[in-house]
């Protein structure tokens, strides 16, 4: 099973390429998502929900293009993940 933390990390790093450190600050605002001092991602509760909320957080600020960027970031990993773990917005 593909860990939600890995998908989240890919999305944040891809967003970081576009908007810089702001990508991490915005990610930390998502409920159930924490970033340790060493940069590791911790997910509390439903990974699927956190993933969806993270995409929503970026979309709220930067519009539909940011949703496409999130999709592109995890495209290569999606086939390895269970459908139940992936929010609709990333499929």
């Amino acid at each position, binding site marked *: 099973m593909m860990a939600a933390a890995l998908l989240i990390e890919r999305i944040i790093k891809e967003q970081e390429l*576009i908007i810089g450190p702001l990508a991490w600050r915005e990610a930390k605002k998502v409920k159930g998502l924490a970033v340790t001092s060493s940069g590791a991602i911790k997910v509390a509760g439903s990974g699927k929900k956190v993933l969806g909320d993270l995409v929503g957080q970026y979309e709220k*600020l930067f*519009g539909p*293009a*940011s949703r*496409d*960027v999130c999709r592109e970031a995890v*495209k290569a990993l999606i086939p*390895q993940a269970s459908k139940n773990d992936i929010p609709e917005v990333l499929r």
Partner: protein
Amino acid sequence: MAHENINFDLYARNAELAVRNKTLSLLHKLDEVTLSTLSTREMTERIATTLAKEFDYPFVALGMCDAAQKYFQWLAASCPRDESKLCAQASSWPKLSLTKVRNAATKSIRTHRRLELRTLSELLTPAAPDDLIQLLSADEQLKSILVFPLVAKSECLGLLAIGLNRGVESLTKYEQETFSPMLGLVTVALQKAEIYSSLVEATANLKVVNKRLKELDAVKTEFVSIASHQLRTPLAAIRGYVDLIKDGTYGQITPPQTEVVGKVHDSVEALIELVGQLLNVSRIESGKTNVEITTIDLASVCTEVSNFLGVKASERGLSLSCDDTRLPPVFGDASKVREVMMNLVENALKYTDKGGVKIIYTEEPKFVRIDVVDTGFGLTKASIEKLFQKFSRAEATAADYPGTGLGLYVCKRLVEAMGGEIWAESPGLGKGSSFCFRLPKAAKASKKSKAK
């Protein structure tokens, strides 16, 4: 709302730039790989590994065609899930005949077209081992395969195969944007590796040929040396007896006989000179000539030669003069300098009908220069360039004057062995010529050394 739209628009443009940055970053990585090695195998392995890692591809393979476009050989394959390491042995998979084998690889090479496949067996059979094909076919992550021909100057150099964990239609923007420059870079890298390996091969062949040529040259030198020695003894006897006949030791000879004997004498002299020169050349080329470098008085050697050949010059109605200025000592071998001077002055007298020959000294900062200047036939520019080569003679005189074409070659080798240089100058045909050489001035504390 306008503010929000500007924000969205900026984001979209930044996203595009990010894709470009990632593309450039990957190309830079590939470029580093191609610059890090010249070995085709190592380079292809690193390219395959870099691509698989960068894009999370479950399978990447790279192969090349031979120069004659008859065979194709896989050189590297990368498959992160291959725990048996079968992919690492790709370079030992059998070559595929491009005319006999019909699979997706040979088809892409023949048609120069990109192919999209569903199974790896279409691509890897019959090259890869069955175990690997079964292993990869069982991998649920491998959903499709893209096969790219690597084409340069309308010739297919090889193939790049990429296995995807999704359909070709869901390639990311980054992947799509990267394909074209990536293929160009890989193609150039393969070309470079191919050129390098053919250079290595050519150098190795040249070394073998060069070694063989050196052996043959040594055999030839040895043969010339032995043959010349064997010739010299009977020639000396012939010359001796001819001289005795000429002098009347065996009874008076008639005028017609005198003329014939004279011709025999001249021919024997020419043969002895040729044999002597050949021996000189073979000694020089086999490194058997000992040049004893000491401090010598160049002016006294020149005066000696001038005095010796003065009689010959007078007989021909020519003048022969020599500078009488004092010269600083030079490094050289007196006997070799004498040989060089004899050759140059004799040549000058031989090719001069009117006027004469002058020996002129010039003191230079680090050398002493000697010019043997004649008022003879002169030389063309083309002759000057070839004069000091073996068996080379000035075309204007070659037909009318006998000679071996070895004298100046011997002079050049001797002067160079003494640390000097030799050359010829002429304003043109009919305007005389100068044969010049220079030898290094001796340092205040003269040294003795031996050179071969």
